[in-house]
């Protein structure tokens, strides 16, 4: 077994195992940690295919920034995995989920059996070391020539999302300030003290 195959097998096992654990876990913090492990393993796979840039961006953006925010929210809401999730969903809905999952598994098996994925992975590993695919220059060139229009559209979409978030945050903030003001008027406090 060559070194490349060994690294490939290890990172695939780690990625799939931690992705499964992420779904199975009750504790949200543990879920986030498993997701980080899975992302790092996926970054290793990208690097093995020669796509160093994609691999490092996966870690910088997802593992380094987005999941920190996930962790932040979980910490602020103080979720510890022992919350009451409400009643179990009805039998019909459970059955539907089960059937759809089986269909997805079957589809996955067909794709793997068709040999297309295995073939592309094999050629990818053989190409390791070449910077012809997924390097910084390639990605940048494609982004600023062929995909310039979608790229710029994405930036407008992100800008709209940021503006939307700011607007929503501001409105909510004002409500909170007003309600705090009402609660803290002397007469209210006085009444509470009397009661």
């Amino acid at each position, binding site marked *: 077994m060559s*070194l490349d195959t060994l690294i490939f097998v290890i990172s695939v096992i780690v990625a799939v195992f931690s992705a499964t654990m992420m779904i199975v876990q009750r504790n949200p913090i543990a879920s986030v940690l498993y997701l980080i492990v899975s992302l790092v393993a996926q970054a290793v796979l990208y690097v093995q295919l020669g796509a160093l840039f994609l691999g490092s961006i996966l870690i910088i953006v997802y593992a380094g920034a987005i999941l920190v925010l996930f*962790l932040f929210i979980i910490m602020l809401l103080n979720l510890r995995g022992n919350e009451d999730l409400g009643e179990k969903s009805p039998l019909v809905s459970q059955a539907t989920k089960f059937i759809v999952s089986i269909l997805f598994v079957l589809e996955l098996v067909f794709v793997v059996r068709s040999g297309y994925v295995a073939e592309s992975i094999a050629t990818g590993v053989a190409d390791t070391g070449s910077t012809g695919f997924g390097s910084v220059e390639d990605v940048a060139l494609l982004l600023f020539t062929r995909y310039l229009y979608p790229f710029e559209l994405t930036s407008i979409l992100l800008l709209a999302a940021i503006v939307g978030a700011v607007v929503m945050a501001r409105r909510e903030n004002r409500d909170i300030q007003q309600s705090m003001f009402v609660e803290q008027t002397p007469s209210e406090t006085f009444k509470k003290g009397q009661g």
Partner: protein
Amino acid sequence: MWEIVIISSIKVLLVVVAILTGCAYATYMERKVLGHMQHRIGPLYAGPYGLLQPVADGLKLIFKEDIVPDNVERTTYALAPLLAFVPSLLTFAVVPFAADVDMFGYRITGVISDLNIGILWVFAVTSLGVYGLVLAGWSSGSKYSMLGAIRSSAQMISYEVAYGLSIIGVILIANTFSLREIVEQQASITDWFVFRQPLGFLLFITCAIAETNRAPFDLPEAESELVAGYHTEYSSMRFSTFFISEYANMIAVSSVATTLFFGGWQGPLLPPILWFCIKVFLFMFLYIWLRATFPRFRYDQLMAFGWKVLFPLALLNTIVTAGLVMLTDWL
């Protein structure tokens, strides 16, 4: 194939040992320099000039009782110091320490791994470092730790933006992401990027100090308000792991600053590895000097400074540098 593995392993071993020794003596240097700056003498009794003080400290920490409070989340609590420590060492994988040498018939490069995306690796690893602090604060089950963790993650996320933008000037001029090539482009002192990117350097070093949570940006462990921040509930070797990772981070940032702005291992007469160490040493001195000079920021000042001063300046630096690079290409 296998000789590459063996050579790399030896290099990794040497670098890790050097970094850990460096961390130990950085604590000695900090106490000594701070002492003299405050008209004290600093550690004196353990060995000549107190040189064995780090050894004494290390032994003391090993023999201390490992106290685990009752309401901690066990797994995460045990994992957090390691999550803080490992990323701080990973940075050194791409930092070039010396020129290439021929030895035993092999060409040995002065860097563990010459990635062509070296700078991105540094940033990827730095961005993972925040997990150790956040999880330590959260799993300790103490409000001081929690406040320290929230502060540190907010601070690191905010300053990472300006940190990343501050080096784009260097990348634009050097036209590469590889740290080895960046060093090779700074052969003479006039080529050092600090002279071609003065604003970029100031932004980089400011953000780097904030990223490593050092004074005057050491809000996460403000001892007068938060006891010790995220590592309040840690003791013994778990505490010292956090302590070592803080110093390893400082050395890592100093190495990256040396490589990007001060010509890395390039220098006359002395061997390259020595030049590298001298430059890193000067940066470590700067860290301690700043700690002795500046009082701590207030938290809102810190956030306002990051978003309203550093971030726009970094954007300005990027735009001006890009314009100048375009102009020189065009002429």
